[in-house]
C-alpha cells in the first residue's frame, strides 16, 4: 500500500472538512473491509484516510417515537446481527446479517461502508429497498435525505457524491403483522441472486394490504418489482400463496440481470424467478407460523 495520512475525527462536520482539506485526495474510512482491498491492489490511492469510526452519532442504533430505526453509518454488521433492539424492531435485518460474508468481516465492516461501496452483491442494498430505507448524507454546506430507490446509481456508484459523508440509514417501522421472506443463492459467501418479499396486512387482516418485492445481486443495482407488488397487493393470503409463481414470473420479466462469473443473463433471470417464488411462499409461511 502507498503511504497515507490517518486523520481521526469526532464529528461529522470535522470529517467533511478534513476530506475537503485534502483536496480530493482523501477517502472516508470506517471498517476498511472494502476500501483496504482496493488500496492493497493499488486500484485506489489516497493521501489521507478520514476515520469516521469515532464519531459517536455514527455508531448508534436508535429508535424514534415514530418507530423508525436509525442506524449510524459506522455500525458494524456484527452489531446489526446481535442487537436485541434490532431483533425486536427490524428482525429481518438481524436475520439476514447472520449470513453476510463471514464473522471477521462482520466484526469490522460497517453498514455505511457497504452502502457507499455499492457492490452489486450487497444484502444491505436489497434490504434498504425492501424495507424502504432513507439515507441521510452530509456535505460541506447541506444535509440531504435520499430514499433507497434513488441511492443506487450503478455498480460501485451511489448517490453519495465526492466528499459527502453518509451519516445514517433510517428504516421505517413495519406494521404489526408484517411478514418477510428472504432467499439467496450463493457461491461460497457471495450471493449471485437475492430475492426479498415483504407482505403487510391490510385493513382486513385476512388480506395482504401491501407487498414489496426487491431483488439484487443479479444485476448492477438492486431493483423493486412494481408489477409483482401490484399482483400481490389486495389479495387474500391464500391468493397470495397461489399467485407466488405469477409474481415470480413478473419479477423475472422486470429484472435486469447482468452476465458475470456466476452465470448468464438467462440463468440469472431463472434464479430471480425461483427465488422470488420461494420468498413469497416463505413470507406467507411465516405468517401462518406467526413469525416475523
Amino acid at each position, binding site marked *: *500500500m*502507498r*503511504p*497515507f*495520512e*490517518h486523520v481521526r475525527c469526532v464529528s461529522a462536520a470535522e470529517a467533511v472538512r478534513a476530506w475537503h482539506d485534502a483536496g480530493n485526495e482523501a477517502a472516508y474510512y470506517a471498517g*476498511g*473491509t472494502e476500501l*483496504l*482491498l482496493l488500496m*492493497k491492489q493499488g486500484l485506489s490511492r489516497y*493521501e489521507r*484516510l478520514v476515520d469516521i469510526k469515532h464519531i459517536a452519532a455514527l455508531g448508534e442504533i436508535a429508535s424514534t417515537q415514530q418507530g423508525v430505526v436509525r442506524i449510524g453509518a459506522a455500525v458494524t454488521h*456484527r452489531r446489526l446481527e446481535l442487537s436485541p433492539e434490532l431483533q425486536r424492531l427490524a428482525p429481518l435485518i438481524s436475520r439476514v446479517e*447472520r*449470513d453476510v*460474508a*463471514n*464473522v*471477521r*468481516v462482520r*466484526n*469490522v465492516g460497517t453498514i455505511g461502508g457497504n452502502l457507499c461501496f455499492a457492490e452489486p452483491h450487497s444484502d444491505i442494498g436489497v434490504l434498504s429497498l425492501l424495507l424502504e430505507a432513507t439515507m441521510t448524507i452530509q456535505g460541506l454546506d447541506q444535509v440531504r435525505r435520499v430514499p433507497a430507490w434513488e441511492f443506487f446509481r450503478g455498480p460501485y456508484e451511489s448517490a453519495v457524491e465526492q466528499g459527502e459523508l453518509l451519516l445514517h440509514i433510517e428504516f421505517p417501522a413495519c406494521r404489526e403483522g408484517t411478514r418477510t421472506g428472504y432467499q439467496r443463492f450463493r457461491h*461460497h*459467501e457471495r450471493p449471485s441472486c437475492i430475492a426479498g418479499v415483504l407482505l403487510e396486512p391490510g385493513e382486513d387482516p385476512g388480506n395482504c394490504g401491501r407487498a414489496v418485492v426487491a431483488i439484487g445481486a443479479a444485476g448492477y443495482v438492486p431493483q423493486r418489482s412494481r408489477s409483482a407488488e401490484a399482483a400481490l397487493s389486495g389479495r387474500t393470503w391464500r391468493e397470495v400463496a397461489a399467485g407466488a409463481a405469477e409474481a415470480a414470473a413478473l419479477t423475472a420479466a422486470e429484472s435486469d440481470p447482468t452476465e458475470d462469473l456466476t452465470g448468464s443473463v438467462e440463468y440469472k433471470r431463472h434464479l430471480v424467478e425461483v427465488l422470488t417464488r420461494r420468498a413469497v411462499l416463505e413470507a406467507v409461511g411465516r405468517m401462518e407460523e406467526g413469525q416475523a
Partner: protein
Amino acid sequence: MKAPRLELHMRVNGRAVALEIEPRELLIDVLRNRLGLTGTKKSCDVEVCGACTVLVDGKTVSSCTYLAFECEGRDVQTIEGLADGETLHPIQQAFVDHQGLQCGFCTPGMIMATKALLDENPDPSVPEIKAYMRGNICRCTGYHAIVTSIQHAARETARS
C-alpha cells in the same frame, strides 16, 4: 508523500508492545515481520480464507486487511499465545487428538476462530459451529474432523 509515522501501544498475547509504525502497515505484517510471530498465515489476502485470523479484544479479524494502528490500546491474541509453555491449549490438543489438521496452513486461523466461538458460545451446536466457521477454509478437505475437534474442544474447555 513522506510517510507519516505514529506510535502504537498494544498488548500481544498479554505482553505490552510499543512500536513506531506507518498508518499503512497491516496487522499481519506487524505481527509476522516486526514481532516475529509467524504462526499467523497470509493466504488469500482478501478476507475470505481465514488463515490470518487473530483476535483483537476477543473478536476475530482478518489481520491481512486490518490496519495495525487500530490495535492502539487493545489486546491482540495470536496462535502463539494459546499454549501454556509445553502444554497445548485444550483447543490445540483437540485438533491434534481428532486429526483436525492435515497440512496445517489453515490451522492457526481455525484455532483462533474456534477460540472466539467458544468464548462467545461455550456449547455450540453443529449448525452453529458450521455457521461461525464458514469463513475459515481448509483445502485439505478436513471439515468433518475440524467440526469434531471443535466439539471436543468445547467439552474440554468447559471441563477446564
